[in-house]
């Protein structure tokens, strides 16, 4: 009697499954709760024409703010931003932010395109400090929005490669040429525009906050950094209000088509941000973050179950 050959044996299955389980274990990320964002935006001296002219003359411009207490410097030489030693400056521009407060804050400032063409870069590490900054062009393309989370008094410098700035400039010009010649608007991964944030306190005490919807779509996310061991802000899509466990959810009211409401389901709501249009890049990151948090959620439920079963020992 001939024996039909089975696809593969149990031993092979176990070996392969162990290999895959090891490969897909989610990485551990640094942990820290998210904070709301202080949007300085264009309200600082580097946006003044005089500061831009000074930068074109002397290749350095600086300004200071009192609230929040910080100093901004843009320069073409590392000496002007306090970096010591020998460095090649010909391919870089530098941004220095001196944050002089002891409180943890996330701050966003807009740097005009006259200093460098707006670039996109997430989690760019400072040269002289362990602090990361996100760079993102604004809607108008007039500024680079720089968002930094400070954990206390910090003096940090970031280098913006001229080549990156040139690439983004070239890409923008190519898009314009295609749009002008063909009328076709090439798709972009990120929605144009900067993130706006629900002001502090607006969602406290299980309150709701309205967001105007003028052009059809919105990308709305909340920072779930406190949920798992995640460290840097962990932005997740705000789900519909259907009784799920998310600390915030969104809903629409019958008869009101131009507004979406964010509802807090907890007394200590997380930071919430939103922008016009559908940001595919942010949505993709949100999905990846959501999937990475699943093992923690399962472990949280299991440990809660054992706590109840064994009297919280």
């Amino acid at each position, binding site marked *: 009697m001939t024996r039909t050959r089975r696809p593969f044996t149990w031993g092979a299955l176990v070996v392969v499954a162990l290999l895959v389980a090891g490969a897909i274990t989610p990485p551990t990320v640094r942990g820290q709760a998210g904070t709301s964002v202080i949007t300085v935006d264009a309200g600082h001296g580097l946006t003044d024409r005089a500061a831009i002219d000074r930068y074109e003359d002397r290749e350095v411009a600086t300004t200071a703010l009192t609230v929040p207490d910080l100093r901004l410097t843009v320069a073409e030489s590392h000496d002007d931003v306090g970096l010591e030693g020998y460095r090649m400056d010909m391919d870089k521009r530098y941004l220095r932010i001196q944050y002089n407060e002891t409180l943890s804050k996330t701050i966003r400032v807009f740097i005009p395109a006259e200093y460098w063409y707006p670039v996109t870069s997430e989690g760019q590490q400072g040269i002289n400090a362990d602090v990361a900054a996100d760079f993102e062009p604004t809607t108008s393309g007039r500024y680079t929005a720089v968002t930094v989370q400070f954990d206390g008094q910090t003096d940090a410098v970031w280098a913006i490669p001229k080549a990156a700035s040139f690439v983004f400039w070239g890409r923008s010009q190519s898009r314009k040429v295609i749009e002008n010649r063909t009328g076709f608007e090439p798709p972009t991964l990120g929605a144009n525009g900067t993130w706006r944030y629900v002001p502090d306190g607006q969602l406290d005490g299980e309150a709701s906050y309205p967001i105007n919807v003028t052009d059809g779509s919105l990308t709305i996310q909340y920072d779930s950094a406190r949920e798992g061991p995640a460290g840097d802000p962990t932005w997740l899509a705000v*789900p519909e209000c259907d009784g799920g466990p998310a600390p915030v959810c969104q809903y629409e009211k019958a008869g009101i088509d131009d507004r979406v409401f964010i509802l807090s389901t907890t007394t200590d709501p997380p930071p919430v941000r939103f922008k016009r249009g559908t940001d595919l890049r942010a949505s993709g990151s949100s999905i990846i973050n959501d999937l990475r948090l699943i093992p923690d959620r399962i472990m949280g439920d299991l440990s809660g179950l054992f706590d109840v079963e064994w009297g919280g020992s």
Partner: protein
Amino acid sequence: MGGFVMVAAPKSPRGVLVVLGILAALLVGVYASTLGSIAVGIGLIAVILYGIYIVGYRFDDYLKNRL
């Protein structure tokens, strides 16, 4: 009669993969917070399990025929 549904344990590695896939999909369905996450999660599970099947099949073939 109130019924107990008797579900047979999987008898082949392929059956185990299918059961694991169903369990993983259920967990994703319960613990993911948006429909997009659920869809991507289930897609990833399918791709991973299919990868395990293919690699396991070739590994088994190597053990049986070429070693």
